């Protein structure tokens, strides 16, 4: 039984330009000790999905119009604010892209680390401070006893992200949601942070939802992946299958356009066009207008995820009926 089970989540934003279907029917499960990658480009709805679960979507203009998110028998989308507050930060924690904006610059790290303990566990300040120091040591900050009293600006970017992780994990949550935690960091620091999250996950048996746009990070870090496009999951499965045998043209094209895998001198593979305008209803496959395999039916027929193998699902109509098979060497559609 999964720890967190999200079913058919729909989050819409009601704006001047119309109803933006930012998340349109997303389902996934999180299991303890496992890492789920949610990968997609900007505007694919990957962050909004997680914000919706934790009740962090600004309302209005946003509204969760459908779906369930079951955690320990409670539907997070329907429960009271009071209930949600008890779960958020205590049993489900989140870390964000920019550690500087999520730390309060006017409070010492010690205060910020102790806060969830004092609120949720009602332990003494002395105990809380001890826990704070321990938590900093656990994320590899040396001299934690002294540095716990620093202000956020006295730490470097990588150190701040470590502090954020310490803060997220101090109340021993069961789920960690990481929203692009390494995007603002340098690659050498990114490697440190990924290693740290991995290590803490092993020690605590956390379920991690890892949101990123970087396929490279997913490949090295996640056991299974959901690929999102235009507010929907278009492909899902175990990481190695997603990479070894892409079953959706979007996933295939995305992997092909990574420069690292290209021979020099040959033009890079590109996906023509732009992501769709989410304020207009999309009856069929959202990727169809940019897809090299598109048939007229793709734009009209509603698509849903369907299993290809036991651990691999795709939302591509043509793949499901077996009209297309190996997507790894598609037609070169090169435009500059």
């Amino acid at each position, binding site marked *: 039984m999964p720890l967190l089970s999200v079913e058919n989540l729909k989050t819409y934003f009601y704006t001047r330009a119309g109803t933006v279907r930012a998340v349109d029917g997303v389902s996934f499960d999180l299991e303890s000790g496992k890492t789920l990658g949610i990968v997609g480009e900007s505007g694919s709805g990957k962050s909004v999905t997680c914000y919706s679960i934790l009740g962090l979507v600004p309302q*209005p203009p946003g509204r969760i119009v459908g779906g369930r998110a079951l955690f320990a028998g409670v539907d997070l989308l329907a429960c009271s604010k009071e209930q949600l507050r008890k779960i958020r930060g205590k049993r489900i924690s989140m870390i964000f892209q920019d550690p500087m904006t999520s730390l309060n610059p006017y409070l010492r790290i010690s205060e910020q680390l102790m806060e969830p303990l004092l609120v949720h566990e009602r332990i003494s300040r002395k105990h809380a401070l001890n826990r704070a120091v321990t938590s900093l040591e656990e994320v590899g900050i040396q001299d934690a006893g002294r540095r716990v009293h620093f202000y956020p600006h006295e730490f470097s970017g990588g150190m701040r992200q470590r502090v954020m992780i310490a803060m997220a994990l101090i109340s021993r949550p069961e789920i960690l949601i990481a929203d692009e935690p390494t995007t603002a960091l340098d690659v050498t620091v990114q490697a440190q942070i990924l290693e740290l999250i991995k290590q803490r996950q092993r020690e605590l048996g956390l379920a991690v939802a890892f949101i990123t746009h970087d396929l490279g990070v997913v490949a090295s870090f996640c056991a299974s992946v959901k690929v999102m496009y235009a507010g929907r999951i278009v492909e899902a499965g175990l990481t190695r299958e997603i990479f070894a045998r892409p079953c959706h043209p979007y996933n295939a094209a995305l992997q092909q356009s990574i420069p690292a895998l290209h021979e020099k001198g040959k033009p890079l593979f590109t996906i023509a*066009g*732009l992501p769709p305008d989410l304020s207009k209803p999309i009856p069929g496959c959202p990727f169809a207008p940019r897809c090299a395999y598109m048939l007229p039916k793709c734009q009209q027929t509603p698509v849903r995820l369907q299993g290809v193998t036991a651990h691999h699902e795709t939302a591509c109509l043509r793949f499901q009926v077996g009209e297309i098979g190996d997507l790894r060497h598609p037609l070169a559609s090169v435009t500059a």
Partner: protein
Amino acid sequence: MSIETATVVPDAPVIQEAKLASGTSLWQDAWYRLQRNRLALGSLVFFCMMAVVCVLGPLFTGYTYEQTELSLKASAPLEPIIERTESVKNGAPRRSYLGLSSIEDEFLEKSPEERQAVVARIKRGEVVREDRFSYHLTRLKHRFGTDALGRDLLTRVLVGGQISLAVGFAATLVSVVIGVLWGAVAGFLGGKVDTVMMRLVDILYAMPFTVIVILLMVTFGRNFILLFVAIGAVEWLTMARIVRGQIISLKHQEFVEAAVSLGLSERTIILRHLIPNVLGPVIIYTTLTVPDVMLLEAVLSFLGLGVPPPMSSWGALLDDGARTMETSLWLLVFPALFFSSTLFSLNFLGDGLRDALDPKSSKD
């Protein structure tokens, strides 16, 4: 925001200018947002109407702002006016006007009963003769009443509005022009120039404004132009600071670096790339400066340092009204009503503009 799909286009065709789709500029966008803000739009309409009424209104009231009628004194709004004709030997009869409420004072030698009978006859419209005087009811009306010198208050409020608005706008204009240029130059050039220019602003800031104005007025006499200069000279300081701050944050933006890379002159960069991008905050601050300046003018008038009589301004009228508010409240109420409703509308408009020009600062 609309997203247009880029397509690869065949060889450059001959461009027909008229056929090009034109985009929506940020100004148009802001205008659109402003239109959706009922309160701000209403305020804008109200304010424009107020301006038109103040400019054109005095032509239709039938009185001028300086025409006195001493015998009329402070008549209440819409009080019937009685014409008194005094026949003079060897000359044309002398005409003067009285308010109905003060007509009894004319017949003080009579007994109260007689007095009331006479007043009743006059009210009925009969011509009453008494000695050399004859009295009869006229159709004249002062909608807002008159002041202690018998001047039509409506006309004076409208003319006063002209002055107040003119001071408000002229002084604001002065402050905007000086402030924007000063701030932009200081901010863009930076370094020593910036230090010197901004220290000057600090020094001017530190001067006690009222004292300076009093000194100016005492030295040069009460003067309309001086009022503009005095107020403008204080108001530009804040504007310069705001603009400088904005320019400093803008000048490290990449589009400014791109303009420098193109080898454009500093003049072009300031006028074309920097100033248009600070106009949003400038406009917002301007709409809030106008009421500020008008208030300042009122304060000065209240201290007796405003426009010289018989000119009026809202501030001067308020000063008059406040002195006589126990006996003739209307002299305070009407100018106050006009003044405060205008200030309200400008403030609402300023708020609306801030939301429209800087959507990030507003709630939605």
